[in-house]
């Protein structure tokens, strides 16, 4: 061959090589077909109906078969699942006023019984949720929908009456009209025990108290998947038993571990731990209002602040006096991250500086705030802003009973506060009492508390959490029958403005900025003190391939990619 020819050949080879190198590599090229994967749950699901279930376990199970229009990835961003793409202004899926959302189904979608998936199923899902007799929990957003139109079987047009900012989070589960039933009978559907879905698996059997078996859905939209020949969900009697089983290899996936399980499982042969920061933040909720008042609205709160916690300097001192890192290191084996604000991960995350541990400064602040050291080390008011002279710096700390980690944390908190001259005393209650309703007289709702310790988390779309917990109109009072979660009874103009902005803006960047402004106010004013962010910890056997940690969704979110070596 002459030099020109050689050069051409080399170039050709080079091009071919470049092409091959850039070819998208299939995710798991060596995925072996077949095999049965065993998944351990220590809680039996109550029902698999996605709009009635409240337990996490129910969702861990129904994820294998029930899907929605969109999914959420590990980065906290939406991706298309049953829809072809995520509706946005750019692709015309979202109208100018943000009230009309158009989804296009992927081609050839079928239910696990072979019936085609159509827009009518989406309409049916909406109708079932808003039906007054259906017993659906969580109808926000769906109630704002005016119509669901079906210009074609694969096009869904959802028209909202008013702009609903978290619209992407709706329709995260589609129910089939032909395989469900009358919406008024929803709690009694056979679907609740054996759902028909579009996911990679379909249920074969559910032996109560023992196991649930899933087999591949032969109508699944991705050819060649799922790889597994079955997924068996084993109901284990307890987490303890689950830990034994994963060590011996009798189960492949162990759901929902706590930090104290890790030292035991980490060294075990063949066991891998998946730990990633979740959106769950453990925090102290401070009551800014006088605790003797019953459900005071904002104007009353301003006139009658909490004698101790009403002063922001005291709140700051409390936060400075807590050694958050020590709690994480000693109680959580270093497996959590220090708490900063409500939105520490996700698309709307807002990075704020974590508080320092500075007990000396805390003591200084308390002195300035008019709390002088008393004879037994606990400070007494002398010229404090809201407290009468002689009042002890003493606060009630409450959390749920029966939670060892929280009890340990409380002990540490008592000790930290003692060192700055504040006395915490404990009065824990069972969780139904702490989380009780206004009607049942729950003290958290009615504002009869000082400090409450618990965990809560925002959804993928933070609107309902941020508005529910921090908007001044979300303060539970008799006037609104105790609706709202602003237990701290915090009213902040800047926060309110930004919450409204985020609520009404279809521009995602504008919303991000607005939420960050709200976080800034929260960090400054401290209606909540964020202690630590829990990690989502699970364990799986190393023979399992395809595991991708996603704290925004359930473990089985990518079950179609799972395989066994």
């Amino acid at each position: 061959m002459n030099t020109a020819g050689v050069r051409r050949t080399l170039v050709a080879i080079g091009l071919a090589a470049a092409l091959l190198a850039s070819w998208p590599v299939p995710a798991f090229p060596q995925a072996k077909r077949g095999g049965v994967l065993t998944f351990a749950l220590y809680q039996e699901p109550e029902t698999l109906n996605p709009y009635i279930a409240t337990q996490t376990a129910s969702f861990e199970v129904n994820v294998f078969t029930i899907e929605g229009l969109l999914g959420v990835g590990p980065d906290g961003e939406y991706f298309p699942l049953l829809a072809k793409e995520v509706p946005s202004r750019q692709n015309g899926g979202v109208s100018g006023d943000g009230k009309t959302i158009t989804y296009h189904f992927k081609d050839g979608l079928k239910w696990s019984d072979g019936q085609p998936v159509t827009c009518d199923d989406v309409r049916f899902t909406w109708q079932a949720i808003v039906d007054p007799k259906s017993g659906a929990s969580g109808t926000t957003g769906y109630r704002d929908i005016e119509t669901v139109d079906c210009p074609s079987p694969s096009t869904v047009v959802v028209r909202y009456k008013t702009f609903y900012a978290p619209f992407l989070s709706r329709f995260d589960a589609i129910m089939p009209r032909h395989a469900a039933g009358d919406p008024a009978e929803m709690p009694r559907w056979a679907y609740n025990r054996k759902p028909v879905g579009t996911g990679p698996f379909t249920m074969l059997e559910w032996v109560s108290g023992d196991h649930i078996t899933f087999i591949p859905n032969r109508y699944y939209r991705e050819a060649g998947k799922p790889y597994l020949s079955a997924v068996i969900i084993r109901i284990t009697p307890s987490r303890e038993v689950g830990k034994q089983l994963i060590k011996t290899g009798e189960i492949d996936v162990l759901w929902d571990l706590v930090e104290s399980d890790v030292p035991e499982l980490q060294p075990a042969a063949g066991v891998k731990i998946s730990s990633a920061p979740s959106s769950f933040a453990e925090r102290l909720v401070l009551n800014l209002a006088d605790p003797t008042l019953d459900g005071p609205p904002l104007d009353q709160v301003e006139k009658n602040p909490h004698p101790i916690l009403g002063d922001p300097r005291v709140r700051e001192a409390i936060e400075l006096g807590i050694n958050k890192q020590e709690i994480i290191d000693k109680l959580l084996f270093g497996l959590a991250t220090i708490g900063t604000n409500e939105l520490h991960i996700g698309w709307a995350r807002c990075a704020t500086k974590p508080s320092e541990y500075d007990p000396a400064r805390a003591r200084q602040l308390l002195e300035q705030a008019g709390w002088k050291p008393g004879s037994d080390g606990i400070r007494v008011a002398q010229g404090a802003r809201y407290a009468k002279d002689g009042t002890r710096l003493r606060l009630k700390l409450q959390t749920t009973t029966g939670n060892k980690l929280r009890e340990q944390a409380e002990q540490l908190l008592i000790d930290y506060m003692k060192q700055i001259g504040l006395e915490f005393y404990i009065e824990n209650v069972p969780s139904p009492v702490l989380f009780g309703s206004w009607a049942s007289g729950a003290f958290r709702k009615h504002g009869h508390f000082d400090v409450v310790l618990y965990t809560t988390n925002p959804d993928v779309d933070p609107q309902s959490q941020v508005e529910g917990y921090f908007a001044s109109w979300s303060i539970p009072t008799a006037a609104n029958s105790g609706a709202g979660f602003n237990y701290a009874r915090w009213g902040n103009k800047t926060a309110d403005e930004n919450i409204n902005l985020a609520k009404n803006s279809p521009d995602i960047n504008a919303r991000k900025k607005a939420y960050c402004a709200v976080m800034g106010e929260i960090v400054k004013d401290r209606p909540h003190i964020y202690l630590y962010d829990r990690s989502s910890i699970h364990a799986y056997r190393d023979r399992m391939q395809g595991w991708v940690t996603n704290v925004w969704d359930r473990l089985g979110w990518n079950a179609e990619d799972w395989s066994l070596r």
Partner: protein
Amino acid sequence: MDSGVGGRGSGVRTSTALVVDRTPDTQPLTPSSRVRPQTMVGLAWWRFTRHRMAVAGLLVVAVLGAASALASWVSPYDPDKPDLQLQLRAPSPVHLLGTDDLGRDLLTRILYGGRISLSIGVLAMTLAVLMGTAVGAAAGYYGGAIDNLLMRFTDLMLSIPALFLLILLILVLRSFPLPFLRGGVLAIVLAIALLSWMTVARLVRASFLSLKEQVFVEAARALGVGNGRIIIRHILPNAASPIIVAATLRVASSIITESGLSFLGFGVQPPTPTWGNMLKNAQDQMITAPWTAIFPGLFIFVTVIAINYVGDGLRDALDPRHLR
């Protein structure tokens, strides 16, 4: 029905003919070189001390009670203050029984815990005995409607497993804002007392039923003594012995009940230590730190045995009739 423990089986045969007291003034029938005490109480005490294990039990209870009450002097450690450098240390010369999950000295916590466990035992017993005696005396003496009511009511209570009822009661009592006494101690005491007074009542009723037929009661009535006085001044002292024995044994069972409830999570709440909730906490650490589970329970065990032995001794001392 119980003929007691084998403390007597070691060779000293107490012949039943030795001391048959129906009244305190009978002289012993067999010759003896020892001068036996003559008063009722003295005689009872003498009989009590013949029971070796009972004396040992009394000693144990006394020592434990004193150590718990004086815990702040006995132990140099603070039972509440966490020391995160010392988490879950095994027993050593510095920490005789080791440390717990927050680095606190276990022996110290057990002693402070003893305060709560023992006080709950005694308080619950006192309440139960007071209520039970009052109701049982009325039922046994007056009979009729009161008696019927008591019997029906006790039947009712005995048909539901006590533990279930106890848990329900505690959930109810805790929802009323009971001040003072952290950790819901008062609720526990009330709940336990409310469920154990019935046995005492039945006992007292039975005693009264038989005693009220005695001659001395007839005599008192003939003399015009009022019913109230008869019950309190005449019958009750004679019914005292089974009540005292029952009361003692009730302390033991109350301690076990409280520990059990705390173990399940319905008893005294942390941070207040009790032997029961220390056991509950220890469950997570059984593999790495078994001493946190072994010792609190051991103290419950030893205390209960000791009290039961004392009860046994009291039974022998106060009511030798049952010895046959």
